[in-house]
């Protein structure tokens, strides 16, 4: 039963994507895509409801799927080779050849054919699957309205949306494949598909910049795939294991740590950690739903998924400590870089990398509460960041800019979207929203490791700064401004409303969320449960956090403010103080910009040095195997 459902969630989107590419009519395509999304969504709910966790299930179609995947590997790699010649980027060719040769050698000479149980289902896969199918579907729905507008702006004669949505659906299938695969070779195949679909989607607009950035994304991810493949081959060669469940059952040993660190390195590239961050920054040229779907809420999370999966194998090792340090370093480095940015999407990109670094750092700390923090961060970050990307996309289509300085006075132009953006940003940076709760947990868990703790704390403080001033910009409003009524496509509006609702409800229900799906996962990892949650109170062995009083205080403030505005007739509205002179809103006589600290932070220079440091840290991770 469970295996069939999993199979549906993988196969259906892939098959549907092949059909979608042939559909030219907008209405038919939209119905078709929404139907597929519905199937993905329902199957994920069904897996969540019915599966007995944790479980490793086989499928009767194993043989044929395995053959297809084996053929698929080569097709995919040859296609990337073709792409490499088309976009004239030799690095892609290098890495695809570097993968084809070992792969062929491995499959022909080393790998002994045997049927293994196909799918590994536990709470972590369920969480990822729910994130992909719920947040992902909402983003895909948003893309309906967004892409129509986008193509109108681009003045395309022939719509290229069928290709766009086909790749999106293909991506859904591949994500589910990564999440559920037990066979590491399958995981590798789906991993490569997501890299390729990322390339196809970034280059969607076919502009020069888009193609350049897309090929950069492809070669960096191909490098990651190569590293993953090397890890798998070493693993099989020395231990004879090719499945996740076998790896997780085995004891920690040095032999295991080598392949694991290669796989973790692959994950670092996928999550755009420090020396690899350039591909994710470049990927921001893609249409915004792509940034939301692939580059913040799902695809980059596949890396976190992989590291989380492998976490038990390196628990308590020096390697783990270095991973924590590396993640923390990426967190603070990208936070500092984000501080110097005024481009909204770039801020979000940097902050995404930073948060992924935070998650990796928490996984590296590898105590029970740190793992809890990482899983919670994964969930909350996916929701909030997707929401923010969608908001920026909506804003950009309306005001024609993604610069936060241009968003001044946005509240009068698009009040609804602004309020949603406001809540979205809040959910990323202040207590008691889930992100901060998890950050609280991460910092407390990290406090044993002084260096990591210091980096995390400094990074969090910086995060608050660059988000606060963004909120300030969008909310700034002149005197007696008129509020416009916004018009948006219904899918866009639906996506924004539903994501903001999910963000708030999840934060309110974080204890229930924890008890329902995070705690069993920790149990399964055979860690002592150090975090308890009940009735709005999260408690670890280091401290406790009450959520409801804080929400109550915020609610009370909203209510008090509302009552004051509503009831009192003696409120006087006045103009902002401008030394007695008053400029009209239309004609600003002055221009106050945010502090971007250009004298301290020079993006280019800083990136260079930070890349060196992070390279050293990666070397340290590999060195950590020996210790």
């Amino acid at each position, binding site marked *: 039963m469970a295996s069939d459902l999993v199979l549906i969630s993988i196969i259906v989107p892939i098959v549907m994507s092949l059909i979608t590419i042939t559909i030219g009519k907008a209405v038919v395509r939209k119905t078709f895509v929404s139907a597929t999304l519905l199937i993905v969504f329902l199957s994920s709910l069904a897996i969540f409801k019915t599966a007995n966790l944790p479980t490793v299930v086989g499928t009767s179609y194993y043989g044929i799927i395995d053959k297809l995947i084996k053929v698929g590997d080569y097709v995919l790699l040859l296609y990337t080779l073709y792409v490499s010649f088309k976009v004239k980027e030799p690095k892609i060719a290098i890495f695809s050849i570097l993968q084809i040769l070992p792969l062929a050698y491995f499959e022909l000479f080393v790998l002994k054919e045997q049927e293994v149980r196909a799918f590994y289902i536990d709470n972590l896969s369920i969480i990822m699957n729910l994130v992909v199918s719920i947040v992902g579907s909402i983003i895909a729905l948003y893309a309906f309205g967004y892409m129509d507008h986008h193509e109108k702006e681009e003045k395309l004669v022939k719509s290229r949306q069928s290709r766009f949505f086909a790749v999106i659906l293909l991506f859904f299938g591949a994500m589910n494949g990564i999440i559920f695969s037990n066979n590491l070779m399958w995981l590798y195949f789906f991993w490569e598909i997501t890299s390729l679909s990322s390339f196809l989607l970034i280059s969607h607009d076919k502009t020069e910049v888009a193609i350049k950035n897309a090929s950069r994304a492809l070669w960096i991810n191909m490098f990651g795939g190569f590293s993953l493949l090397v890890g798998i081959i070493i693993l099989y060669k020395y231990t004879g294991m090719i499945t996740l469940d076998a790896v997780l059952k085995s004891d920690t040993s040095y032999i295991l740590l080598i392949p694991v660190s290669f796989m973790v390195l692959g994950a670092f590239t996928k999550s755009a950690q420090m020396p690899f961050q350039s591909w994710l920054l470049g990927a921001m040229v893609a249409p915004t739903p792509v940034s939301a779907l692939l580059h913040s809420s799902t695809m980059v999370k596949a890396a976190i998924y992989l590291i989380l999966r492998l976490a038990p194998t390196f628990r308590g090792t020096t390697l783990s400590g270095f991973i924590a340090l590396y993640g923390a370093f990426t967190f603070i480095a990208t936070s500092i870089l984000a501080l110097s940015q005024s481009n909204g999407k770039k801020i979000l990109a940097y902050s995404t990398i930073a948060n992924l670094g935070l998650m990796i750092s928490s996984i590296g700390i590898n105590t029970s509460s740190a793992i809890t923090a990482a899983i919670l961060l994964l969930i909350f970050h996916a929701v909030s960041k997707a929401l923010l990307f969608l908001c920026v996309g909506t804003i950009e289509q309306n005001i024609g800019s993604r610069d936060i300085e241009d968003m001044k006075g946005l509240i009068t132009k698009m009040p609804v979207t602004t309020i949603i953006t406001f809540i979205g940003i809040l959910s990323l940076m202040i207590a008691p929203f889930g992100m901060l709760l998890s950050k609280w947990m991460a910092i407390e868990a990290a406090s044993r490791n002084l260096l990591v703790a210091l980096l995390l704390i400094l990074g969090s403080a910086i995060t608050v700064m660059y988000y606060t001033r963004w909120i300030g910009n969008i909310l700034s409003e002149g005197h007696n401004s008129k509020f416009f009524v916004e018009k948006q496509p219904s899918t866009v509006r639906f996506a924004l409303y539903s994501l903001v609702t999910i963000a708030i409800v999840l934060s309110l229900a974080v204890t229930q969320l924890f008890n329902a799906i995070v705690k069993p996962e920790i149990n399964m990892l055979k860690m002592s449960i150090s975090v308890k949650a009940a009735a709005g109170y999260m408690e670890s062995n280091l401290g406790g956090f009450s959520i409801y009083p804080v929400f109550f205080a915020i609610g009370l403030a909203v209510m008090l403010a509302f009552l004051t505005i509503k009831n009192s007739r003696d409120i006087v509205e006045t103009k902002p103080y401008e030394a*007695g002179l008053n400029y009209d809103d239309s004609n600003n006589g002055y221009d106050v910009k945010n502090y971007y600290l250009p004298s301290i932070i020079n993006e280019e220079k800083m990136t260079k040095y930070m890349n060196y440091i992070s390279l050293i840290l990666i070397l340290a991770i590999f060195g950590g195997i020996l210790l």
Partner: protein
Amino acid sequence: MGLKEFVKKSFSKSPWVVHYDCGSCNGCDIEVLACMTPIYDMERFGMVNVGNPKHADILIVTGTVNEKNKDVLKNVYDMMPDPKVVVAAGICACSGGIFRDCYNVLGGIDKVIPVDVYVPGCPAKPEAMIDGLYKAAQILKEKYSRREVIVSAKSLG
């Protein structure tokens, strides 16, 4: 002492001052600043120079009003939340002084905003100014009491 009494008293005890130089020769301005020095120390009456009309209760103006700055003066006055008191410091602010016949001068500041206390002198002495401000604080308290009555009458119907 009841709460209402305390509120009233606090108006006379905590007058915050904003100083606006309306085109004075700086003679009176220096004297306004002298009020804050240790010798005169206007803070012992709770008077603070806040420099921001939105926080202030008392507007102390020096110099004559002219065509150019009358809007600014009006604007600063309008930005002060009620109850508020205006002190005209120096003879120029009171009546225009020796500049009253200039082509661009309107006269004293009472041509633009209502003035409660006039402090004459050229320049007005700090003692005189503090005296004026103290009187203004009493007026502030009175205005508050009157306003209370009006507000409560309004809320009754």
